[in-house]
C-alpha cells in the first residue's frame, strides 16, 4: 500500500471531481476530503432553483451517493474545518485540534458570499444564499402569499426571485445599478430579463439605494433611501462572492484575486494544487488570467489537478460555460463576454422568449448568451473552443443556419 496521502480541503464540486479524478487516474494512496458542510459534495446550482422550490430533495442534490466514496476508498471528513496548514511539516490542523499529515494537498475552498454592511441585516429572515444550510433556513420563511425582497439583481438573485415567484410569493428585486445583470451582460439581455420578470409578476427596482432592513426580531420591510418601504417577510442578499483564500494566505501561497495556479493547477508550492472558484489561472483560449465562478471550471480544473497529482501533467484548456434557469428561460452561456464592443442578436428579444446574443471584440467572437436556443449554444461552445470566428451579419439572419455563420 502506498504511503501517499492526498488531503482535499473543501467539499463542493471541485472536491468531488478531484477525489473521483484521483482514483480514475490511478492514485493508490489514501484520499481524505475535508468539508465544512455536513453533507457529501452536492450540486449547488439547484439551491436557488429546484431545491428552493421543493422540487428536489437533499439526497437528490448529491453529486455522488455517499457509498461512492466508500467504494472508492475516499475518506469523507465532513462538518470539519481546517484551521491551519503547515507546509514545512506537511500537516493540516482541524478545528478540533486534530493534526493530519499529507504528502499532497488540494485546495478546493471555493468562494464565500460577499457581505455588505446594512443596518438590520442581523434580523431574522435575512439571508445570503450559498450553502445548503442557508437554503434550509430560507425555506422556513417562504410560502405562498408571503413577500420577499431580493437585494442584488445578479443571477443568484434573479433565480431566487423566479423560484419564489413560482411559489406564489410577492417578489421585489432591488438592484443598485441602472440595470439588472449589468456587470455580466449586454443591455439587451438585461432588458429581456427585466421584461420577463415583470411579465411574471416580479417587481424590479433599479438604482435602488437600500437604507436599512427593518423589523423587530424578524424582518418586515426594506427601507430605501428615497423613502419607499418594500414589505418583506424574507430578504435574500446576493451581491457576489469572493474567493475563499484564508488558508492559502495563512500558508503563504501566492495570491492575486484568488490562489495563483499554473496551467497544471499547481500553486506556488508544487505539492499543493488548487481548483475551482478559489483559483486564479491562465486561460489559453482568451490569453489572460481568470478567476471563474462556475461548476464547469470547478469540475474541469479539478480533473487537471488530479492528473497533476498522479504525475500526468496536462494543460488546462477549457472554454468557460455557464447556465441559469429562470421561469421557462434556459440561459446557456458559452465563453466570456468581458471586453466586447459589439453585440449581435439573433431572434426577437423584445417580444419572444427565445433568442441569442453574440458578443464580439474587434470583429472576433468572444461569447454567446443563448436563451432557449440550445443549437446556438452548442455550436458556439464547440467552435469557440476551436478558435473559430463567425460572421455577425449571418448570425443575425435567422434564414442562415447557425453553423453556416461560422468559418469553415
Amino acid at each position, binding site marked *: 500500500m502506498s504511503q501517499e496521502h492526498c488531503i482535499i480541503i473543501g467539499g463542493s464540486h471541485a472536491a468531488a471531481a478531484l477525489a*473521483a479524478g484521483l482514483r480514475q487516474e490511478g492514485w493508490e494512496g489514501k484520499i481524505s476530503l475535508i468539508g465544512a458542510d455536513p453533507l457529501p459534495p452536492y450540486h449547488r*446550482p439547484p439551491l436557488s432553483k429546484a431545491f428552493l422550490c421543493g422540487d428536489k430533495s437533499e439526497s437528490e442534490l448529491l453529486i455522488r451517493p455517499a457509498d461512492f466514496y466508500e467504494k*472508492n476508498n475516499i475518506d469523507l471528513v465532513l462538518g470539519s474545518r481546517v484551521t491551519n496548514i503547515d507546509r514545512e511539516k506537511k500537516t493540516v490542523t482541524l478545528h478540533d485540534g486534530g493534526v493530519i499529515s499529507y504528502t499532497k494537498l488540494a485546495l478546493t475552498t471555493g468562494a464565500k458570499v460577499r457581505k455588505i454592511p446594512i443596518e438590520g441585516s442581523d434580523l431574522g429572515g435575512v439571508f445570503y444564499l450559498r450553502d445548503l444550510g442557508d437554503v434550509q433556513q430560507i425555506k422556513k420563511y417562504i410560502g405562498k402569499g408571503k413577500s420577499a425582497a431580493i437585494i442584488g439583481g445578479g443571477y443568484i438573485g434573479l433565480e431566487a426571485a423566479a423560484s419564489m415567484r413560482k411559489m406564489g410569493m410577492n417578489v421585489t428585486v432591488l438592484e443598485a445599478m441602472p440595470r439588472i445583470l449589468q456587470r455580466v451582460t449586454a443591455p439587451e439581455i438585461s432588458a429581456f430579463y427585466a421584461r420577463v420578470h415583470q411579465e411574471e409578476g416580479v417587481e424590479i427596482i433599479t438604482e435602488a439605494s437600500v437604507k436599512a432592513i427593518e423589523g423587530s426580531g424578524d424582518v418586515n420591510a426594506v427601507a430605501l433611501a428615497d423613502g419607499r418601504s418594500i414589505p418583506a417577510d424574507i430578504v435574500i442578499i446576493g451581491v457576489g462572492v469572493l474567493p475563499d483564500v484564508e488558508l492559502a494566505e495563512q500558508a503563504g501561497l501566492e495570491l492575486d484575486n484568488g490562489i495563483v495556479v499554473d496551467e497544471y493547477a499547481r500553486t506556488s508550492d508544487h505539492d499543493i494544487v488548487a481548483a475551482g472558484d478559489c483559483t486564479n489561472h491562465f486561460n489559453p483560449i482568451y490569453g489572460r488570467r481568470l478567476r471563474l465562478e462556475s461548476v464547469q471550471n470547478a469540475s474541469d480544473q479539478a480533473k487537471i489537478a488530479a492528473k497533476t497529482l498522479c504525475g500526468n501533467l496536462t494543460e488546462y484548456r477549457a472554454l468557460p460555460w455557464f447556465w441559469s434557469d429562470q421561469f421557462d428561460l434556459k440561459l446557456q452561456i458559452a465563453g466570456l463576454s468581458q471586453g466586447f464592443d459589439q453585440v449581435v442578436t439573433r431572434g426577437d428579444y423584445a417580444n419572444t422568449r427565445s433568442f441569442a446574443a453574440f458578443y464580439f471584440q474587434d470583429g472576433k467572437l468572444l461569447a454567446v448568451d443563448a436563451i432557449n436556443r440550445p*443549437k446556438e449554444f452548442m455550436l458556439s461552445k464547440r467552435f469557440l473552443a476551436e478558435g473559430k470566428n463567425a460572421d455577425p451579419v449571418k448570425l443575425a439572419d435567422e434564414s442562415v443556419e447557425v453553423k453556416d455563420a461560422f468559418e469553415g
Partner: protein
Amino acid sequence: MPLITFVSHDGEAKEVHVESGTNLMQAAVDNGVDGILGECGGVCSCATCHCYIDDAWVAKVPAAEDLEKDMLDCVLEPKDSSRLSCQVEVSDELDGIVVHLPESQF
C-alpha cells in the same frame, strides 16, 4: 431494481442496478461509469451525458422533448438513437436496457 448495461466506446460493458425514478446519467455517475459526465447535474444544459440507446430498446424509451432534440443535433456524432441520458428516466419497463457511450462528450 432495474438493471442497466452501459457499454463503453471500446466495448467494455458495466452492469448496474439502480432505483426506478432516477435517470440514466445519475445511474452512470453514481456507479463510476466514466463515459458520462453530467456536469450540469441533470438539467439538460450541458450535453455532457450523451449516449446511444441500444436499437432493441429505442422504442421503449419515451421520446425527447424539443430542447433536448436541438441539443442532440449538435453533439459529436449524433445518431437516431442519441439521447441525453439525464433526460431518460429509469423505470421498470426499462429493466435490462443497454446503453452505448460515445467516444467523447466534447
